[in-house]
């Protein structure tokens, strides 16, 4: 039923825990694993619009985010390879939810895995939250990893 899963990582500790959970699922149920990091161009543009960033910072941070993304994807590979799980990685740029959706569809993914959603300050904040947007935008089931850190690490270490 489930042949391929896609885990979204954004560099947060929570998303790297979700990556471990995805590796555990892939190994346990013999499912193909993909990982994606998206350089969030929209948020950089938004920060320029509200004058928090200046254009030179936008370009500088975009480069840094790309380098960070590659670093996190390499880390995902290391975590997966340590458990004998092959992982295909995608470094995308643009609108996070849209890029996750595009990749999920292009790779015929059955489930998208994301980490726990943060508590929102208001309804309007949901509009800006990337993971909320992924949940709403992708057409396939979304699996939200809510277990605590210790449980996830134990699960990952047990395979």
């Amino acid at each position, binding site marked *: 039923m489930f042949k391929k899963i896609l885990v979204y990582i*954004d*560099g*947060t500790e929570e998303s790297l825990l979700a990556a471990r959970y995805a590796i555990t699922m892939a190994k346990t149920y013999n499912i193909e694993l993909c990982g994606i990091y998206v350089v*969030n161009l929209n*948020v*950089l543009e*938004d*920060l320029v619009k*509200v*004058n*928090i*960033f*200046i254009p*030179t*910072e936008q370009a500088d*941070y975009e480069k*840094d*985010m790309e380098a*960070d*993304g590659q*670093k996190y994807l390499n880390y995902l590979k290391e975590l997966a390879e340590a458990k004998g799980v092959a992982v295909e990685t995608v470094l995308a740029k643009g609108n996070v939810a849209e890029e996750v959706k595009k990749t999920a569809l292009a790779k015929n993914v059955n489930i998208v895995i994301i980490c726990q959603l*943060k*508590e929102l*300050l*208001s309804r*309007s*904040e949901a509009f*800006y939250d990337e993971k909320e947007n992924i949940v709403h935008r992708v057409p396939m089931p979304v699996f939200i990893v809510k277990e605590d850190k210790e449980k996830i690490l134990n699960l990952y270490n047990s395979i």
Partner: protein
Amino acid sequence: MTVLETLTEDVVKVPLTSETKIEILDELLEILVAKGLVKNREKVFQKIMAREEQVSTGLDHGIAIPHAKGEGVDSLVCAVGIKPEGIDFESHDGQPTKLFFLVIAPPGQTGPHIEALKEIAVLVSDNTRREKLFQAKTSKELLSIIHSV
């Protein structure tokens, strides 16, 4: 945990006592230094000032979000302060600046850094919420508003 969720009373100061832009930045940085969150004060201060020299981080509506990235901190850190009467922070709208969020991130944490700036931007974008923040009389009260809105 988001940057606002991790804020504690010892990185929040109400009121800030400084009278000038440079002093306010120094006072905010001192909060983080006192807590042992900044390893190289001089280097971090230079980074903050280098950004300010390009364009002020004083925004509209009494808010400033000075920020820097680089060596000198081990993780993303933030200090918050209020100057109730406001100071000249070379803001975009020319109005006095009252509420300050200093955000410093180490190299390799660009994603969380961007998220933190976005989170603060969303927090202060609402007029009613902003007014409530300005009226906080103590660090505890300010933190309570940030955490409860």
